């Protein structure tokens, strides 16, 4: 997407290039000088180039900021390399690399990146591409400078796109607000505009307050007071969202356990390792795709889902057939045996992949964030919430609407009866455990997006998962859902007051106290059946 834009930009600028013929010599020389420049010299070159105001420098500066500008050590030429395309930064022509070409990146640091962004903002404010103009306007918002007011006015007059126009007006308002030269009336008029500019309005306003004249301070304070009320509401909602997204992670981790533990009565301490194996499967799938089918990289997580389900499900079936089935009716023994399995699985993975973290790249559709009214929602978390809910309802469907689900419930309620009715109980046991493990694997796929992929991954979730299942009530999927979301939201509301560590301790204490009140969890089954 972004590269697309850049190409467009380059094309547009190429079209404009002849107009800037006069200064091209300078530009070319400066760009060429970048090859050998130190960071300090680069800073000077960037300032000089920006000072030309010539759109022809845009491609070079953009590439420099993005880390796409290279120097060919053999020829000393400065080139732009994006993927396998190599172009000349000044002319934009394609360049065929010599056989002995040795490209080394021209490196920049943060302050240079900032300079470049500021320089580009001025030059791209009148670009034909609305997205470019938008980012330019936002650039002005970040660096308000009264000198830019005329430029902004010009741009506002010509602007047709509503979004871009708003951004430009915000940038102008802020600049005016901060400008001690502007009249008080103008500055006061700017206050409501700035107040309406979005999430950071309060902080922008309060920072503008410091050297403002008194009458201005009054109106700024009024605006802040109004905004703060609004923010309290959105802040609470934001917390709810954080809680829901934490809760959905807990739900994913716990839901497989709700099957193996809640339905089968197996205390599966290796559950976390199933999650971990799901994550490693994702890693392998992505590695394979990256090496062989790079075009599919964005879908690697989707491809990893069935793979992880199958891998962990199969391992789960193996564990059930090999070990668990000898231990039915002795839940405690399953705890010990599965704890042993978890140690073995951890060490196996450590031996094969090494103890260090492995990398799973986020697909582009899961990167970044969006503003939803006053909420900031990151795509990664958003998709995990959706995914958790899908998994939950699919599982509900499987348990309540399929023959396998029926058989599972039959076997767990009365094994002997089910068996005498012709249900192959060993098969059903294996499938149930496999299902629980497979879902753990799915959770592993999702967790690659927020956590480490290391042999210890599972251990971080096992206790939380048990808390969720026990809190919600064993044997009740809805309990698991409500339990996970409650714990997630409670955690996020405690965190700002108590801090992350104390918050977590408080949650544990609350669970302990809650179990005293309701020894069988939130959604406990009642009646005689419970005691038997």
């Amino acid at each position, binding site marked *: 997407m972004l590269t697309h834009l850049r190409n467009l930009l380059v094309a547009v600028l190429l079209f404009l290039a002849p107009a800037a013929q006069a200064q091209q010599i300078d530009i070319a020389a400066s760009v060429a000088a970048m090859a050998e420049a130190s960071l300090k010299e680069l800073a000077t070159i960037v300032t000089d180039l920006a000072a030309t105001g010539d759109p022809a420098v845009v491609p070079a500066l953009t590439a420099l900021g993005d880390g796409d500008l290279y120097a060919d050590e053999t020829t000393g030429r400065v080139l732009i390399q994006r993927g396998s395309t190599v172009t000349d930064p000044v002319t934009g022509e394609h360049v065929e690399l010599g056989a002995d070409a040795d490209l080394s990146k021209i490196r920049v640091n943060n302050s240079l990146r900032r300079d470049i962004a500021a320089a580009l903002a001025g030059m791209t404010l009148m670009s034909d591409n609305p997205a470019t103009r938008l980012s330019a306007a936002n650039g002005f918002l970040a660096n308000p400078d009264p000198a830019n007011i005329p430029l902004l006015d010009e741009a506002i007059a010509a602007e047709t796109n509503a979004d871009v126009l708003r951004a430009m007006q915000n940038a102008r308002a802020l600049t005016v607000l901060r400008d001690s030269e502007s009249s008080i009336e103008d500055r006061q008029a700017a206050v409501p505009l700035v107040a309406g500019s979005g999430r950071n309005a309060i902080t922008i306003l309060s920072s503008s307050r410091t050297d403002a004249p008194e009458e201005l301070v009054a109106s700024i304070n009024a605006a802040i007071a109004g905004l703060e009320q609004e923010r309290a509401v959105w802040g609470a909602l934001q917390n709810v969202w954080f809680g829901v997204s934490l809760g959905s992670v807990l739900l994913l981790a716990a839901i497989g356990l*709700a099957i193996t533990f*809640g*339905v*089968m*009565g197996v*205390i599966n*301490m290796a559950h976390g390792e199933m999650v971990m194996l799901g994550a490693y499967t994702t890693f392998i799938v992505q590695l394979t795709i990256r090496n062989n089918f790079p075009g599919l990289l964005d879908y690697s997580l989707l491809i990893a889902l069935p793979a992880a389900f199958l891998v962990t499900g199969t391992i789960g079936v193996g564990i059930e057939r090999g*070990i668990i089935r*000898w*231990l039915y*009716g*002795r*839940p*405690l*023994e*399953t*705890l*010990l*045996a599965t*704890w*042993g*399995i978890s*140690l*073995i699985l*951890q*060490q*196996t993975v450590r031996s094969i992949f090494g103890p260090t973290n492995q990398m799973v790249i986020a697909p582009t559709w899961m990167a970044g964030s969006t503003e939803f009214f006053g909420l900031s929602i990151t795509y990664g978390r958003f998709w995990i919430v959706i995914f958790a809910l899908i998994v939950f309802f699919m599982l509900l469907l499987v*348990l309540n609407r399929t023959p396998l689900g029926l058989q*599972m*419930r039959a076997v*767990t*309620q009365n094994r002997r009866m089910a068996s005498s009715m012709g249900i192959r109980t060993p098969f059903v046991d294996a499938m149930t455990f496999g299902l629980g493990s497979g879902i753990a694997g799915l959770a592993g796929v999702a967790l690659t997006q927020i956590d480490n992929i290391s042999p210890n991954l599972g*251990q971080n979730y096992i*206790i939380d998962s*048990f*808390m969720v299942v*026990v809190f919600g009530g*064993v*044997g*009740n*999927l*809805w309990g698991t859902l409500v339990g996970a979301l409650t714990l997630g939201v409670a955690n996020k509301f405690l965190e700002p007051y108590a801090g992350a*560590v*104390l918050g*977590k*301790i408080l949650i*544990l*204490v609350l*669970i*302990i106290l809650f*179990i*005293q*009140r309701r*020894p*069988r969890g939130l*959604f406990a*089954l009642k009646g005689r*059946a419970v*005691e*038997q």
Partner: protein
Amino acid sequence: MLTQALFRALDRKAIWVIGIFLAVAILVPMANLLIPPGQFGHVPTYLVSLLGKYLSYAILALALDLVWGYCGILSLGHGAFFALGGYAMGMYLMRQIGTRGVYGNPVLPDFMVFLNWKELPWYWQGFDNFWFAMAMVVLVPGILAFVFGFFAFRSRVTGVYLSIITQAMTFALLLAFFRNDMGFGGNNGLTDFKDILGTPVQAQAIRATLFAATAIALALSVLVCSMIVNSKLGKVMVAVRDAESRTRFLGYRVEYVKLFAFTVSAIMAGIAGALYVPQVGIINPGEFEPGNSIEVVIWAAVGGRGTLIGPIIGAIVVNLGKSWFTTVFPEFWLFALGALFVLVTLFLPKGIVGLWKQIFGRARAAHPDTTPKASADIERGEDPATFGDAQPRPAE
């Protein structure tokens, strides 16, 4: 009354176990102090501390077995009581450092000085007194277990729920002790001890004494446990384990029986922790790790739960294995430990002691006392240690 109980406790088996550990308490320090290094029979000081550590683990395993093997309460948080006892001892040892800390502050331990604490928090007061500290070793785990158990057992939290909340308890304590603001040295815990009762902890004689104290404590623990399990109360405990509600209908206050066992067990664990700390030289929040508490369960299971000697054997054997593996095959330790968990549960449900009985008990198979057909029944249906009422239920 007490004499009768004591007499009952000292049956043939208990006399043997107690006798062995009392002998060990004398012989090992003697072999360490009297036989010069290099000569046959000399026990190096390093080994004395190591064995002392194993024996303190054995006390912990025995404590767990009292609640799990006899009373059916699977505590996954016994490491917490052990650690609390250890911290109480550690606090005493920290206060003993006095001005020898790096900052030379006579009152504040080093970690408080460099975190800029100005005065000793109230809960550190009194720990410069050995007897006060020893009282805390008993009281802190005991009171925690009493309060925790009082509410949990009164609310009839049983089976897996109880196991999970004991795990939550130790996990919460782990997080709490990690916090530097708690004033227990955070992640680093308490270390760099100098003196115990005015004598350097590193001194050979002190190490031998600590070892002897641990062995005697173990012998006393066996005596106390034997007293309990051989009394009518012990029979009620087993009854609670096997059929909790039936015991209640007989008029026994199951919650008090459990509370008694749990508290006594926690105190034993605390004492074990207090003996452990000066011998290993450090106490840190890692002892609260839920994994550690689960490992204690496997010690008891490997040795044979529901017996007095089983957990002791289990703790020593598993830890010997750990010491050996982490040196000889460092990469394989987790494989070995994991396999041990799986194999013992699958093939040795009664642990080493059970295996011993199987092999050597055959000859006396005719005797009804020692060949409980009951065990077969129990194994099949109502395993004493299973969570009687955590049976599988369907999802809604």
